[in-house]
């Protein structure tokens, strides 16, 4: 077993499976709702899952970004970005550079309630980056965004996370085809790899290979 991943089964949810997260690789975990994608992510994050998992998990210090941005409405954008340090009682670094990187320069003092959905998710991304962890877990992070923002913020996230071990849980075949170095499909039958299109991530959404992979993934999801 590699240095980060898990191997085992959760009776009633999924059979024996093995998930490896190689270093510097973006893994997209694709599957229908309710097959246990998020359970796998939560196991890797060390979060409660509500299921009995029989097997072993190799964890690394992780940062988490979910569909729900989890921003605290009473903290400014800057304070939200440095939430981790605040919660651990550490001195927070200046978040200005991170905010600039996600396209929110000058938003430091704003409250989350004054931001749009896309801007909120950008703040959540900056907060994830501020944690500076070797493993980054993204649980349907862009599902609540419209198609255009999903492309933009997805590509931005991958550029900023380049070089890290990343797990993206998604139900969107297009997202998996664009963002995954490694694409895995979770079904009742188990966890199966699917060849990823050529090219470095994030890939163009309209590249021929990406569209082909998207169609093939959809086919497998429907099977």
């Amino acid at each position, binding site marked *: 077993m590699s240095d980060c991943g898990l191997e085992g089964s959760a009776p009633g949810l999924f059979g024996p499976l093995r998930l490896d997260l190689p270093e510097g690789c973006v893994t997209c975990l694709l599957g229908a709702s309710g097959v246990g994608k998020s359970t796998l992510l*939560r196991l890797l*994050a*060390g*979060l409660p899952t509500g299921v009995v998992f029989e097997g072993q998990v190799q964890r690394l210090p*992780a*940062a*988490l970004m*979910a569909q*729900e*941005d*989890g921003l*605290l*409405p*009473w*903290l400014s954008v800057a304070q939200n970005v440095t*939430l*981790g340090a*605040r*919660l*651990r*009682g550490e001195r927070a670094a200046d978040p200005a550079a991170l905010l600039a990187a996600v396209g929110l320069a000058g938003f430091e003092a704003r*409250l*989350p*309630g004054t931001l749009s959905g896309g801007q909120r998710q950008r703040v959540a991304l900056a907060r994830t980056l501020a*944690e500076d962890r070797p493993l980054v*877990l993204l649980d349907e992070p862009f599902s609540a965004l419209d198609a255009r923002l999903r492309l933009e913020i997805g590509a931005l996230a991958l550029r900023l996370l380049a070089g890290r071990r990343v797990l993206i849980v998604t139900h969107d075949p297009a997202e998996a085809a664009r963002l995954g170095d490694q694409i895995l499909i979770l079904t009742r039958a188990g966890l199966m790899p699917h060849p990823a299109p050529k090219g470095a991530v994030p890939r163009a959404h309209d590249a021929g290979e990406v569209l082909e992979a998207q169609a093939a993934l959809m086919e497998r999801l429907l099977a």
Partner: protein
Amino acid sequence: MKGLALALLLWQAGVWATGLPPYLLPGPWAVGQALVAHRGELAPATALTGAATLIGLALGAGLGVALALMMAAWPRLGRAFAPLLIVSQSIPVFALAPILTLWLGFGMAPKLAMVVLITFAPVAQALHDGMRAMPTARADLAQVMGASRRAVLWHLALPGALPQLASGLRLAAVYAPLGAVIGEWMGGAQGLGALMLHANGRMKTDLMFAALLVVIALALLLQAVVNRGLQNALRRRGFEC
């Protein structure tokens, strides 16, 4: 305003129609006259009742917040106390008033005790519920970030429960004047409650009603001030209200 005018009109009409003597049902005009004639008695009584209400509310809210924090910090304590809070709210406080007077004398203390008794539970319960109802997304984030339990309570649960705390405080502000008047009614020698009791005893029904009007005005004013303050506090902290 229209509703108030209509109510006054109906009241006066009722007095005329039934021909009840003023010592049974004074009309609004008579009550208004009593309000002016007895302002020398009413003003100090109002100040006293108002003070008991405000101080008692502050003490009750403080106690409620402290209790909720302890219950959140020690979940076993919380589980033990939660049902007691509900029980405490169903105690008919009238029944306790005489004993409070026996214990605490005839001054300010039994009144304050009554206000505290009637206000701490809604505050404690609302804040405790609010702290427990932290969204899963926040709890997950905190755990992955390596936050201690204390940090979660202090930085996430408590500030996140501000809207619920506000509802508890609003409720407490509604009850607080009631507590003060009950305290005065049962054991106080001064204040609007005592004034009402004495007026009743002397068949000065118009004065009784005048004092009652002042109590209502006091309660409405307090509610308005508390609501406004809470609304501002919530908005400043990014909560919608």
